Protein backbone atom coordinates (compact mmCIF):
# COMPACT_ATOMS: atom_id res chain seq x y z
CA UNK A 1 0.00 0.00 0.00
CA UNK A 2 1.17 3.50 -0.84
CA UNK A 3 -0.19 6.69 0.68
CA UNK A 4 -3.70 6.52 2.08
CA UNK A 5 -6.29 9.27 1.83
CA UNK A 6 -8.99 9.55 4.46
CA UNK A 7 -12.42 9.84 2.84
CA UNK A 8 -14.56 9.62 5.97
CA UNK A 9 -13.66 10.17 9.61
CA UNK A 10 -15.56 9.05 12.70
CA UNK A 11 -18.06 11.91 12.54
CA UNK A 12 -18.57 11.39 8.85
CA UNK A 13 -19.33 7.70 9.38
CA UNK A 14 -21.71 8.46 12.25
CA UNK A 15 -23.59 11.03 10.17
CA UNK A 16 -23.81 8.69 7.19
CA UNK A 17 -25.19 5.87 9.31
CA UNK A 18 -27.70 8.20 11.03
CA UNK A 19 -28.88 9.45 7.64
CA UNK A 20 -29.26 5.86 6.35
CA UNK A 21 -31.34 5.05 9.45
CA UNK A 22 -33.64 8.01 8.70
CA UNK A 23 -33.95 6.99 5.05
CA UNK A 24 -34.78 3.38 5.98
CA UNK A 25 -37.58 4.55 8.29
CA UNK A 26 -38.86 6.98 5.67
CA UNK A 27 -38.86 4.47 2.82
CA UNK A 28 -40.55 1.77 4.93
CA UNK A 29 -42.99 4.25 6.49
CA UNK A 30 -41.89 3.30 9.98
CA UNK A 31 -40.43 0.13 11.44
CA UNK A 32 -43.31 -2.35 11.13
CA UNK A 33 -42.10 -5.71 9.72
CA UNK A 34 -38.58 -4.30 9.44
CA UNK A 35 -35.44 -6.34 10.07
CA UNK A 36 -31.74 -5.82 9.37
CA UNK A 37 -29.14 -8.39 8.32
CA UNK A 38 -25.44 -7.55 8.15
CA UNK A 39 -22.90 -9.39 6.00
CA UNK A 40 -19.90 -10.64 7.98
CA UNK A 41 -17.79 -9.11 9.24
CA UNK A 42 -18.06 -5.34 9.05
CA UNK A 43 -21.57 -5.32 7.63
CA UNK A 44 -22.77 -6.77 10.93
CA UNK A 45 -21.24 -3.91 12.92
CA UNK A 46 -22.78 -1.33 10.61
CA UNK A 47 -26.15 -3.15 10.82
CA UNK A 48 -26.04 -2.96 14.61
CA UNK A 49 -25.22 0.76 14.48
CA UNK A 50 -28.13 1.39 12.10
CA UNK A 51 -30.41 -0.46 14.54
CA UNK A 52 -29.12 1.73 17.40
CA UNK A 53 -29.88 4.86 15.37
CA UNK A 54 -33.40 3.60 14.61
CA UNK A 55 -33.85 2.98 18.33
CA UNK A 56 -32.84 6.59 19.04
CA UNK A 57 -35.24 7.94 16.43
CA UNK A 58 -38.29 5.70 16.88
CA UNK A 59 -37.58 4.01 20.23
CA UNK A 60 -38.16 0.61 18.59
CA UNK A 61 -35.83 -2.42 18.65
CA UNK A 62 -35.40 -3.78 15.14
CA UNK A 63 -34.07 -7.38 14.96
CA UNK A 64 -30.51 -7.66 13.64
CA UNK A 65 -28.97 -10.80 12.12
CA UNK A 66 -25.55 -11.80 10.81
CA UNK A 67 -24.99 -13.53 7.48
CA UNK A 68 -21.86 -15.36 6.35
CA UNK A 69 -21.81 -15.76 2.57
CA UNK A 70 -18.65 -17.87 2.18
CA UNK A 71 -20.51 -21.04 1.18
CA UNK A 72 -22.44 -19.13 -1.50
CA UNK A 73 -19.46 -17.45 -3.17
CA UNK A 74 -19.24 -17.92 -6.93
CA UNK A 75 -15.44 -18.02 -6.71
CA UNK A 76 -15.26 -20.61 -3.93
CA UNK A 77 -13.64 -23.11 -6.28
CA UNK A 78 -11.20 -20.49 -7.60
CA UNK A 79 -10.34 -18.68 -4.39
CA UNK A 80 -6.61 -18.79 -3.87
CA UNK A 81 -6.75 -18.22 -0.16
CA UNK A 82 -9.09 -20.24 1.97
CA UNK A 83 -12.03 -18.21 3.14
CA UNK A 84 -12.85 -18.98 6.76
CA UNK A 85 -16.45 -20.11 7.21
CA UNK A 86 -18.06 -18.06 9.93
CA UNK A 87 -21.38 -18.27 11.70
CA UNK A 88 -24.69 -17.16 10.27
CA UNK A 89 -27.02 -15.98 13.03
CA UNK A 90 -30.52 -15.02 11.95
CA UNK A 91 -32.73 -16.03 14.86
CA UNK A 92 -35.92 -14.38 13.63
CA UNK A 93 -38.37 -15.20 10.85
CA UNK A 94 -37.62 -13.22 7.67
CA UNK A 95 -40.80 -14.32 5.88
CA UNK A 96 -42.92 -11.31 4.83
CA UNK A 97 -40.45 -8.87 6.39
CA UNK A 98 -38.89 -5.83 4.82
CA UNK A 99 -35.29 -6.88 5.12
CA UNK A 100 -32.43 -4.39 4.92
CA UNK A 101 -29.19 -6.09 3.90
CA UNK A 102 -26.08 -4.22 5.07
CA UNK A 103 -22.45 -4.32 3.93
CA UNK A 104 -19.49 -2.00 4.28
CA UNK A 105 -18.39 -1.61 0.64
CA UNK A 106 -20.35 -2.23 -2.57
CA UNK A 107 -17.96 -3.04 -5.44
CA UNK A 108 -18.55 -5.81 -8.04
CA UNK A 109 -21.89 -6.82 -6.53
CA UNK A 110 -20.89 -10.48 -6.27
CA UNK A 111 -21.03 -10.55 -2.48
CA UNK A 112 -24.56 -9.17 -2.62
CA UNK A 113 -25.53 -11.79 -5.22
CA UNK A 114 -24.28 -14.50 -2.84
CA UNK A 115 -26.08 -12.89 0.08
CA UNK A 116 -29.38 -12.79 -1.84
CA UNK A 117 -29.04 -16.52 -2.60
CA UNK A 118 -28.33 -17.24 1.06
CA UNK A 119 -31.26 -15.13 2.29
CA UNK A 120 -33.73 -16.88 0.00
CA UNK A 121 -32.77 -20.14 1.77
CA UNK A 122 -34.03 -18.61 5.01
CA UNK A 123 -37.43 -17.61 3.68
CA UNK A 124 -39.28 -15.18 1.45
CA UNK A 125 -39.01 -11.59 2.64
CA UNK A 126 -41.58 -9.08 1.41
CA UNK A 127 -38.68 -7.00 0.13
CA UNK A 128 -34.90 -6.92 0.35
CA UNK A 129 -33.25 -3.50 0.38
CA UNK A 130 -29.54 -2.83 0.31
CA UNK A 131 -27.64 -0.39 2.52
CA UNK A 132 -23.88 0.18 2.17
CA UNK A 133 -21.49 2.57 3.85
CA UNK A 134 -19.44 3.05 0.67
CA UNK A 135 -20.35 2.52 -2.99
CA UNK A 136 -17.12 2.49 -5.01
CA UNK A 137 -18.64 1.55 -8.39
CA UNK A 138 -17.40 -1.06 -10.94
CA UNK A 139 -20.43 -3.35 -10.76
CA UNK A 140 -20.14 -6.71 -12.58
CA UNK A 141 -23.75 -7.67 -11.89
CA UNK A 142 -27.05 -5.75 -12.17
CA UNK A 143 -27.18 -4.76 -8.49
CA UNK A 144 -27.66 -1.35 -6.89
CA UNK A 145 -27.91 -0.01 -3.36
CA UNK A 146 -31.05 1.61 -1.90
CA UNK A 147 -29.14 3.46 0.82
CA UNK A 148 -25.57 4.72 0.38
CA UNK A 149 -23.38 6.37 3.01
CA UNK A 150 -20.94 7.81 0.50
CA UNK A 151 -20.32 7.36 -3.21
CA UNK A 152 -16.60 7.19 -3.88
CA UNK A 153 -15.48 7.07 -7.53
CA UNK A 154 -12.46 4.77 -7.65
CA UNK A 155 -10.27 2.95 -10.13
CA UNK A 156 -9.60 -0.81 -10.01
CA UNK A 157 -6.07 0.04 -8.94
CA UNK A 158 -7.31 1.54 -5.73
CA UNK A 159 -8.34 -0.22 -2.54
CA UNK A 160 -11.05 1.04 -0.22
CA UNK A 161 -10.51 0.23 3.45
CA UNK A 162 -13.28 0.57 5.99
CA UNK A 163 -12.05 0.60 9.57
CA UNK A 164 -14.57 0.26 12.37
CA UNK A 165 -14.13 0.56 16.11
CA UNK A 166 -15.52 -2.95 16.67
CA UNK A 167 -13.04 -4.73 14.38
CA UNK A 168 -10.16 -2.34 13.75
CA UNK A 169 -10.08 -0.01 16.75
CA UNK A 170 -10.91 3.17 14.85
CA UNK A 171 -13.66 4.63 12.65
CA UNK A 172 -12.42 5.76 9.23
CA UNK A 173 -12.69 5.08 5.52
CA UNK A 174 -9.42 5.18 3.60
CA UNK A 175 -8.58 4.97 -0.07
CA UNK A 176 -5.17 3.80 -1.20
CA UNK A 177 -3.26 2.90 -4.34
CA UNK A 178 -2.68 -0.88 -4.44
CA UNK A 179 1.01 -1.65 -4.10
Amino acid at each position, binding site marked *: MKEKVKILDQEGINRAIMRIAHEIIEKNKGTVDLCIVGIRNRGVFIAKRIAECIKKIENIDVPVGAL*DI*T*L*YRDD*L*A*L*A*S*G*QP*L*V*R*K*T*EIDFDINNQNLVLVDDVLYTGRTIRAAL*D*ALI*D*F*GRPKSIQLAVLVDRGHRELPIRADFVGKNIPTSHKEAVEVHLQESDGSDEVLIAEKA
Partner: protein
Amino acid sequence: MVWTKKDLLGLEYLTSEEIELILDTAESFKEVSTREIKKVPALRGKTAVNLFYEPSTRTRVSFEVAAKRLSADVINISTETSSVRKGETLIDTGKNIQALKADIIIMRHNYSGAANMLARALDISVVNAGDGWHEHPTQALLDMFTLKEKLGKIKGLNVAIVGDIAHSRVARSNIWGLTKLGANVTVCAPEILLPVGIELTGAKTSSNLDEVLKKSDAVNVLRMQFERDEGTAFPAQLDYFKKFGITEERLAKAKKDIVVMHPGPINRGIEMSSEVADGANSVILEQVTNGIAVRMAVLYLVSQAKEAKK
Protein backbone atom coordinates in the same frame (compact mmCIF):
# COMPACT_ATOMS: atom_id res chain seq x y z
CA MET B 1 -4.48 -21.02 9.43
CA VAL B 2 -5.02 -22.59 6.02
CA TRP B 3 -5.97 -26.22 5.47
CA THR B 4 -3.56 -27.87 3.02
CA LYS B 5 -4.22 -31.61 3.31
CA LYS B 6 -6.25 -33.32 0.60
CA ASP B 7 -7.10 -36.18 2.97
CA LEU B 8 -8.22 -36.74 6.53
CA LEU B 9 -6.59 -39.99 7.63
CA GLY B 10 -6.17 -39.65 11.37
CA LEU B 11 -5.70 -37.17 14.19
CA GLU B 12 -2.17 -38.47 14.79
CA TYR B 13 -1.13 -36.64 11.62
CA LEU B 14 -2.72 -33.28 12.44
CA THR B 15 -1.41 -30.31 14.41
CA SER B 16 -3.46 -28.84 17.23
CA GLU B 17 -4.10 -25.80 14.97
CA GLU B 18 -5.52 -28.03 12.23
CA ILE B 19 -7.79 -29.81 14.72
CA GLU B 20 -8.99 -26.47 16.05
CA LEU B 21 -9.67 -25.23 12.52
CA ILE B 22 -11.93 -28.24 11.90
CA LEU B 23 -13.77 -27.67 15.18
CA ASP B 24 -14.19 -23.93 14.51
CA THR B 25 -15.40 -24.56 10.96
CA ALA B 26 -17.85 -27.18 12.27
CA GLU B 27 -19.28 -24.60 14.64
CA SER B 28 -20.22 -22.44 11.65
CA PHE B 29 -21.71 -25.42 9.81
CA LYS B 30 -23.89 -26.49 12.73
CA GLU B 31 -26.31 -23.65 12.01
CA VAL B 32 -27.04 -24.95 8.49
CA SER B 33 -28.87 -27.99 9.91
CA THR B 34 -31.20 -25.73 11.91
CA ARG B 35 -32.50 -23.94 8.81
CA GLU B 36 -35.76 -24.68 7.10
CA ILE B 37 -33.79 -25.31 3.91
CA LYS B 38 -30.91 -27.39 5.25
CA LYS B 39 -28.56 -26.96 2.32
CA VAL B 40 -25.73 -24.69 1.19
CA PRO B 41 -24.15 -24.74 -2.29
CA ALA B 42 -20.50 -25.07 -1.19
CA LEU B 43 -19.84 -28.48 -2.80
CA ARG B 44 -22.27 -28.17 -5.70
CA GLY B 45 -21.07 -30.29 -8.61
CA LYS B 46 -18.77 -32.41 -6.44
CA THR B 47 -19.22 -36.14 -6.07
CA ALA B 48 -18.57 -37.98 -2.82
CA VAL B 49 -18.39 -41.77 -2.77
CA ASN B 50 -19.13 -43.74 0.38
CA LEU B 51 -16.96 -46.86 0.12
CA PHE B 52 -17.70 -49.10 3.08
CA TYR B 53 -15.97 -52.44 3.55
CA GLU B 54 -17.56 -52.89 6.97
CA PRO B 55 -21.17 -52.58 8.02
CA SER B 56 -22.07 -49.12 9.29
CA THR B 57 -25.28 -47.20 9.49
CA ARG B 58 -24.66 -44.17 11.59
CA THR B 59 -21.30 -43.11 10.16
CA ARG B 60 -22.31 -43.75 6.56
CA VAL B 61 -25.64 -41.96 6.91
CA SER B 62 -23.98 -39.10 8.79
CA PHE B 63 -21.44 -38.61 5.99
CA GLU B 64 -24.20 -38.87 3.39
CA VAL B 65 -26.32 -36.26 5.17
CA ALA B 66 -23.27 -34.00 5.59
CA ALA B 67 -22.32 -34.24 1.91
CA LYS B 68 -25.91 -33.63 0.78
CA ARG B 69 -26.29 -30.57 3.01
CA LEU B 70 -23.25 -29.19 1.17
CA SER B 71 -25.00 -29.95 -2.17
CA ALA B 72 -22.54 -32.69 -3.19
CA ASP B 73 -23.80 -35.77 -5.02
CA VAL B 74 -23.36 -38.94 -3.00
CA ILE B 75 -22.88 -42.47 -4.26
CA ASN B 76 -22.94 -45.39 -1.84
CA ILE B 77 -20.89 -48.47 -2.62
CA SER B 78 -21.46 -51.46 -0.41
CA THR B 79 -18.74 -54.03 -0.91
CA GLU B 80 -21.32 -56.78 -0.51
CA THR B 81 -22.77 -55.96 -3.92
CA SER B 82 -19.67 -54.66 -5.73
CA SER B 83 -16.74 -56.07 -7.70
CA VAL B 84 -14.82 -56.36 -4.45
CA ARG B 85 -16.64 -59.69 -4.20
CA LYS B 86 -14.99 -60.68 -7.47
CA GLY B 87 -11.55 -60.05 -6.06
CA GLU B 88 -10.81 -56.47 -7.13
CA THR B 89 -8.05 -54.91 -5.03
CA LEU B 90 -8.63 -51.80 -2.93
CA ILE B 91 -6.31 -49.68 -5.09
CA ASP B 92 -8.05 -50.81 -8.30
CA THR B 93 -11.44 -49.98 -6.83
CA GLY B 94 -10.11 -46.56 -5.79
CA LYS B 95 -8.59 -45.83 -9.20
CA ASN B 96 -11.87 -46.76 -10.87
CA ILE B 97 -13.76 -44.37 -8.64
CA GLN B 98 -11.18 -41.69 -9.45
CA ALA B 99 -11.65 -42.44 -13.17
CA LEU B 100 -15.36 -41.78 -12.70
CA LYS B 101 -14.26 -38.25 -11.74
CA ALA B 102 -15.47 -38.47 -8.17
CA ASP B 103 -13.90 -35.90 -5.86
CA ILE B 104 -13.92 -37.51 -2.42
CA ILE B 105 -13.84 -41.12 -1.23
CA ILE B 106 -15.16 -41.69 2.27
CA MET B 107 -13.86 -45.10 3.28
CA ARG B 108 -14.39 -47.56 6.08
CA HIS B 109 -12.15 -50.62 6.01
CA ASN B 110 -11.40 -53.48 8.37
CA TYR B 111 -7.63 -53.20 7.82
CA SER B 112 -5.62 -50.64 9.78
CA GLY B 113 -3.83 -48.29 7.39
CA ALA B 114 -6.13 -48.96 4.44
CA ALA B 115 -7.10 -45.28 4.15
CA ASN B 116 -3.45 -44.18 4.21
CA MET B 117 -2.62 -46.62 1.43
CA LEU B 118 -5.54 -45.51 -0.74
CA ALA B 119 -4.77 -41.81 -0.17
CA ARG B 120 -1.19 -42.29 -1.39
CA ALA B 121 -2.39 -44.05 -4.53
CA LEU B 122 -4.98 -41.45 -5.54
CA ASP B 123 -5.09 -37.75 -6.40
CA ILE B 124 -8.62 -37.30 -5.09
CA SER B 125 -9.45 -36.80 -1.42
CA VAL B 126 -9.75 -39.72 0.96
CA VAL B 127 -11.57 -39.33 4.25
CA ASN B 128 -11.05 -42.12 6.75
CA ALA B 129 -14.36 -43.28 8.22
CA GLY B 130 -12.63 -45.90 10.34
CA ASP B 131 -9.80 -48.31 9.49
CA GLY B 132 -9.35 -51.47 11.53
CA TRP B 133 -8.06 -50.72 15.02
CA HIS B 134 -6.20 -47.64 13.79
CA GLU B 135 -8.24 -44.42 13.65
CA HIS B 136 -11.76 -43.05 13.31
CA PRO B 137 -10.92 -39.36 13.12
CA THR B 138 -14.38 -37.87 12.51
CA GLN B 139 -15.81 -39.73 15.53
CA ALA B 140 -13.09 -38.30 17.77
CA LEU B 141 -13.61 -34.84 16.25
CA LEU B 142 -17.34 -34.94 16.97
CA ASP B 143 -16.64 -36.16 20.51
CA MET B 144 -14.27 -33.23 21.01
CA PHE B 145 -16.73 -30.81 19.42
CA THR B 146 -19.44 -32.00 21.83
CA LEU B 147 -17.08 -31.70 24.81
CA LYS B 148 -16.11 -28.18 23.82
CA GLU B 149 -19.76 -27.25 23.38
CA LYS B 150 -20.72 -28.69 26.78
CA LEU B 151 -17.72 -27.65 28.87
CA GLY B 152 -16.49 -24.62 26.95
CA LYS B 153 -12.96 -25.91 26.37
CA ILE B 154 -10.79 -28.98 25.90
CA LYS B 155 -7.53 -27.82 27.50
CA GLY B 156 -7.10 -29.08 31.04
CA LEU B 157 -10.13 -31.39 31.01
CA ASN B 158 -9.87 -34.84 32.56
CA VAL B 159 -11.38 -37.27 30.10
CA ALA B 160 -11.86 -40.99 30.75
CA ILE B 161 -12.22 -43.47 27.93
CA VAL B 162 -13.76 -46.66 29.22
CA GLY B 163 -14.12 -50.03 27.57
CA ASP B 164 -12.57 -52.04 24.82
CA ILE B 165 -9.48 -49.89 24.26
CA ALA B 166 -7.57 -52.70 22.53
CA HIS B 167 -9.91 -53.00 19.57
CA SER B 168 -10.98 -49.37 19.45
CA ARG B 169 -10.03 -46.92 16.72
CA VAL B 170 -12.34 -44.42 18.42
CA ALA B 171 -10.15 -44.58 21.54
CA ARG B 172 -6.96 -44.07 19.54
CA SER B 173 -8.27 -41.07 17.62
CA ASN B 174 -9.65 -39.55 20.81
CA ILE B 175 -6.35 -39.97 22.62
CA TRP B 176 -4.41 -38.29 19.82
CA GLY B 177 -6.86 -35.42 19.47
CA LEU B 178 -7.54 -34.75 23.14
CA THR B 179 -3.89 -34.85 24.22
CA LYS B 180 -2.93 -32.52 21.34
CA LEU B 181 -5.47 -30.00 22.59
CA GLY B 182 -4.19 -30.28 26.16
CA ALA B 183 -6.68 -32.61 27.86
CA ASN B 184 -5.62 -35.31 30.32
CA VAL B 185 -6.78 -38.69 29.06
CA THR B 186 -7.12 -41.83 31.14
CA VAL B 187 -8.07 -45.10 29.46
CA CYS B 188 -9.88 -47.48 31.75
CA ALA B 189 -10.54 -51.16 31.03
CA PRO B 190 -9.89 -54.68 32.24
CA GLU B 191 -6.17 -55.26 31.79
CA ILE B 192 -6.75 -57.72 29.00
CA LEU B 193 -8.37 -54.93 26.93
CA LEU B 194 -5.56 -52.42 27.51
CA PRO B 195 -3.10 -52.76 24.63
CA VAL B 196 0.61 -52.88 25.35
CA GLY B 197 2.26 -49.51 24.74
CA ILE B 198 -0.93 -47.44 24.86
CA GLU B 199 0.74 -45.12 27.40
CA LEU B 200 3.17 -44.05 24.65
CA THR B 201 0.30 -42.06 23.14
CA GLY B 202 0.20 -39.85 26.22
CA ALA B 203 -2.76 -41.48 27.96
CA LYS B 204 -2.71 -42.80 31.51
CA THR B 205 -4.11 -46.28 32.16
CA SER B 206 -6.23 -47.66 34.95
CA SER B 207 -8.44 -50.61 35.75
CA ASN B 208 -10.21 -48.90 38.66
CA LEU B 209 -13.28 -47.26 37.16
CA ASP B 210 -14.61 -45.65 40.36
CA GLU B 211 -11.29 -43.91 41.03
CA VAL B 212 -11.10 -42.66 37.45
CA LEU B 213 -14.70 -41.39 37.39
CA LYS B 214 -14.18 -39.33 40.56
CA LYS B 215 -11.64 -37.13 38.78
CA SER B 216 -13.23 -37.04 35.32
CA ASP B 217 -15.04 -34.11 33.67
CA ALA B 218 -16.23 -36.43 30.93
CA VAL B 219 -16.37 -40.12 30.22
CA ASN B 220 -16.43 -41.63 26.74
CA VAL B 221 -17.89 -45.10 26.95
CA LEU B 222 -16.90 -47.44 24.15
CA ARG B 223 -18.95 -50.25 22.73
CA MET B 224 -17.87 -53.78 23.50
CA GLN B 225 -17.10 -55.04 20.01
CA PHE B 226 -18.25 -58.61 20.33
CA GLU B 227 -18.03 -59.05 16.58
CA ARG B 228 -14.25 -58.66 16.87
CA ASP B 229 -13.99 -61.19 19.71
CA GLU B 230 -11.83 -64.16 18.87
CA GLY B 231 -13.30 -66.09 21.76
CA THR B 232 -10.68 -65.39 24.39
CA ALA B 233 -10.21 -61.71 25.05
CA PHE B 234 -13.63 -60.71 26.28
CA PRO B 235 -14.88 -60.99 29.83
CA ALA B 236 -18.36 -62.41 30.21
CA GLN B 237 -20.93 -59.72 29.49
CA LEU B 238 -22.56 -59.69 32.92
CA ASP B 239 -19.19 -59.68 34.65
CA TYR B 240 -18.08 -56.74 32.54
CA PHE B 241 -21.21 -54.76 33.35
CA LYS B 242 -20.59 -55.28 37.07
CA LYS B 243 -17.00 -54.05 36.96
CA PHE B 244 -17.00 -51.52 34.09
CA GLY B 245 -20.61 -50.75 33.24
CA ILE B 246 -21.62 -47.11 33.79
CA THR B 247 -24.59 -47.12 36.15
CA GLU B 248 -26.46 -44.45 38.11
CA GLU B 249 -24.85 -45.72 41.34
CA ARG B 250 -21.40 -45.21 39.83
CA LEU B 251 -22.27 -41.76 38.48
CA ALA B 252 -23.59 -40.71 41.90
CA LYS B 253 -19.99 -40.88 43.14
CA ALA B 254 -18.57 -38.99 40.13
CA LYS B 255 -18.56 -35.24 39.44
CA LYS B 256 -22.14 -34.01 39.32
CA ASP B 257 -21.99 -32.58 35.81
CA ILE B 258 -19.86 -35.30 34.27
CA VAL B 259 -20.52 -35.56 30.52
CA VAL B 260 -21.35 -39.09 29.39
CA MET B 261 -20.59 -39.91 25.74
CA HIS B 262 -20.91 -43.03 23.62
CA PRO B 263 -20.07 -43.38 19.91
CA GLY B 264 -22.97 -45.81 19.41
CA PRO B 265 -24.49 -48.24 18.84
CA ILE B 266 -25.06 -48.81 22.56
CA ASN B 267 -25.21 -52.26 24.10
CA ARG B 268 -27.64 -51.35 26.88
CA GLY B 269 -26.90 -53.28 30.04
CA ILE B 270 -23.33 -54.07 29.00
CA GLU B 271 -21.32 -50.82 28.79
CA MET B 272 -23.94 -48.66 30.43
CA SER B 273 -27.39 -48.94 31.93
CA SER B 274 -30.43 -47.61 30.11
CA GLU B 275 -30.97 -45.04 32.89
CA VAL B 276 -27.54 -43.54 32.18
CA ALA B 277 -27.90 -43.71 28.40
CA ASP B 278 -31.16 -41.75 28.60
CA GLY B 279 -30.19 -39.70 31.66
CA ALA B 280 -29.37 -36.04 32.25
CA ASN B 281 -25.60 -36.46 31.87
CA SER B 282 -25.86 -38.25 28.53
CA VAL B 283 -25.05 -36.28 25.36
CA ILE B 284 -25.24 -39.30 23.09
CA LEU B 285 -27.84 -37.93 20.69
CA GLU B 286 -26.20 -34.50 20.61
CA GLN B 287 -23.06 -36.32 19.45
CA VAL B 288 -25.05 -37.63 16.48
CA THR B 289 -26.27 -34.13 15.59
CA ASN B 290 -22.78 -32.67 15.97
CA GLY B 291 -21.38 -35.44 13.78
CA ILE B 292 -23.06 -33.87 10.77
CA ALA B 293 -21.49 -30.44 11.39
CA VAL B 294 -18.04 -31.96 11.93
CA ARG B 295 -18.26 -34.08 8.77
CA MET B 296 -19.49 -31.09 6.76
CA ALA B 297 -16.43 -29.17 7.96
CA VAL B 298 -14.10 -32.04 7.02
CA LEU B 299 -15.60 -32.51 3.54
CA TYR B 300 -15.49 -28.76 2.94
CA LEU B 301 -11.88 -28.37 4.09
CA VAL B 302 -10.42 -31.34 2.18
CA SER B 303 -12.13 -30.24 -1.03
CA GLN B 304 -10.92 -26.66 -0.52
CA ALA B 305 -7.37 -27.87 0.01
CA LYS B 306 -7.47 -29.75 -3.23
CA GLU B 307 -8.77 -26.72 -5.09
CA ALA B 308 -6.01 -24.55 -3.67
CA LYS B 309 -3.38 -27.01 -4.98
CA LYS B 310 -4.53 -26.93 -8.62
